[in-house]
């Protein structure tokens, strides 16, 4: 290949991820955002205005005039949406925290295991993905319902006298989210712990640090990058989660994914659901961008 050819090639390679982002993130987002500025209509598609190239420039300008932020204003006026957002964030937050509490010791154990076992352990963590997500969530109904496996077990062991009501409560949602997203928490933490140099722990002990304190002063801080990555990988999809609250949570469960689904399917209100989705995206993206900026600045300062 000529020098120029290889330069063009390397530019193209860089372009690929950008092109991906543009086509599969930016373009869909612009479409959703534009729908959120429309009003509902009994038509196909169920909103107006609809842009048609046939209308010409004048038609498009006219259409743009019809767009408005009414749906967003509506979201702030009805407490239902705000509560749904807040409750989603709360449920996702609690689930993420619980997932972290469970995943960290598992990841730690895996990283401490003999080297030859690790690929097998990793396989076991990913194994549930071989079964359909939906089937696994349904299985939890069978486990958690009042006459389900869990209650039968606890009753027969004599630990409880009457069945626990778990299904259709927030606890069922926590269990569902933690169970479904656990691998996403385990894997980044494991990868951070696994590449840590064991001599760092020895150095800490050598300098007078007992094992538990060495964990908090060395191991944990060095695994923070994995913890943050894991928390994001669980928290972000959990906020918008629809299937788990729908199947395991009760009718009174308020989560934004469910609200969105109702607006979109039952009420056929595309513009409003598009506005709900846009706000959800902003709620998630803005703090992340802010956080990453802070981190980058902190690293700058270290130099």
């Amino acid at each position, binding site marked *: 290949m000529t020098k120029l050819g290889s330069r063009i090639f390397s530019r193209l390679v860089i372009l690929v991820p950008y092109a991906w982002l543009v086509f599969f993130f930016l373009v869909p987002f612009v479409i959703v955002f534009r729908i959120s500025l429309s009003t509902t209509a009994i038509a196909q598609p169920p909103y107006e205005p609809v842009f048609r190239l046939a209308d010409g420039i004048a038609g498009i300008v006219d259409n743009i005039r019809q767009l408005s932020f009414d749906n967003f204003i509506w979201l702030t006026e009805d407490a239902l949406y705000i509560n749904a957002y807040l409750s989603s964030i709360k449920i996702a937050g609690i689930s993420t925290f619980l997932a972290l509490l469970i995943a960290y010791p598992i990841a730690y154990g895996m990283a401490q295991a003999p080297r030859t076992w690790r690929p097998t352990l990793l396989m076991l963590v990913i194994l549930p993905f071989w079964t359909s997500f939906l089937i696994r969530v349904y299985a939890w109904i069978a486990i958690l319902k009042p006459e389900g496996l869990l209650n039968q077990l606890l009753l027969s062991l004599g630990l409880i006298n009457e069945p626990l009501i778990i299904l259709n409560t927030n606890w069922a949602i926590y269990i569902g989210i933690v169970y479904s997203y656990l691998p996403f928490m385990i894997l980044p933490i494991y990868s951070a712990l696994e590449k840590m*140099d064991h*001599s*760092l722990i*020895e*150095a*800490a*002990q*050598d*300098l*007078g*640090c*007992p*094992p538990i*304190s060495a964990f908090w*002063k*060395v191991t944990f*801080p*060095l695994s923070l990058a994995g913890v943050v990555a894991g928390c994001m990988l669980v928290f972000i999809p959990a906020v918008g989660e629809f299937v788990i609250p729908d199947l395991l949570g009760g009718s009174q469960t308020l989560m934004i994914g469910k609200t969105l689904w109702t607006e979109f399917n039952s009420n056929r209100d595309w513009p409003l659901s598009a506005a709900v989705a846009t706000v959800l995206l902003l709620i998630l993206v803005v703090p992340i961008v802010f956080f990453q900026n802070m981190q980058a600045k902190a690293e700058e300062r*270290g*130099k």
Partner: protein
Amino acid sequence: MKSLGNIRRSFAPWADPDSKPFISFKNITKKFGDFTAVDNLTLDIYHREFFALLGASGCGKSTLLRMLAGFERPTSGEIILDGQDIAGIPPYRRPVNMMFQSYALFPHMTVESNIGFGLRQDGMPKAEIAERVTQMLKLVKLEQFAKRKPQQLSGGQRQRVALARSLAKRPKVLLLDEPLGALDKKLREETQFELMDLQQQLGLTFVVVTHDQEEAMTMADRIAVMSHGNVIQVATPAEIYEAPNSRFVADFIGDVNILEGKVKAAGNGRIEIAGDDFTVRTVGDASPAIGAGAAFAVRPEKLKVSRAAPADASINASEGEIWDIAYLGDMTVFHVRLPSGKVVKTSMLNAQREVENPIGYDEKVWVSFAETAGVVLKD
């Protein structure tokens, strides 16, 4: 050997029957599964000694050091430190500190907090910690790097941070595992002398692991040459070089010529070995059986090459032929082929070499050496 800077006048506690060892390994064995890494090893190290464990990679040096630090438990035997059996003491309570081969600096802490880490563990007051850290930074000449993170330093600077961190707590013993392994040659040589100065200045006991014989010779008061989990010889660098006790040590340290033969006579502090080219007449206390196989080790610089046969008949001598000449700047190495076909190595300082009419290729020469030039090897 270039440097003899480590010869300290009258520091030889090991030769004094009244002085007690500071560290004692007593019949230490360490097994990993079926594999014996350290094999029934006994070794004494004295207070304020600069002690080197020297041996090829995999011979158990690090394992021995790690047992002293408390990271490995001996399978059997005991380790006494300052009069106390340290078997049950965990690493975080031992009065020893270690400088790790990989440095093991905490990447999430600055140079300053790395050095202060051990002091904070001890609950030392903040002001004192700051003072000690400043002092350590000054000692290793890194004052202006206090706020940096380890990954923003060069290899040599990291090495000095690791050293400062392991010295900050003023341990009774400093353990150094291949401390200079990652440095380039020039920096390594400079740092060797810095380490020696530091050890003198602070009056500590240093135990250093190395596979580099020159490094061990330069720095240590005494060297333990190890092989396969055993100590083969413990002695000062000069003794190890001049009087290796075995073929292994002779071969391992520097260049050596080994002359083989059979014992012809022995007794009254003298040994005579009949070989193919020489009849080696030498001094030695051992009294091997007449006719037994024996080996005599002599260093290249102790062999003399000359055109004329030595006048003194008591000198060991053989004819030979120059086979190869290597000019090394400060000295010249001659490879001389003896009548039996054996090639010996001799070296001569160029300051002593005849400038006019020097000995050249294929010339017939005499190789000779004094009776005290080498030693009879024990095995």
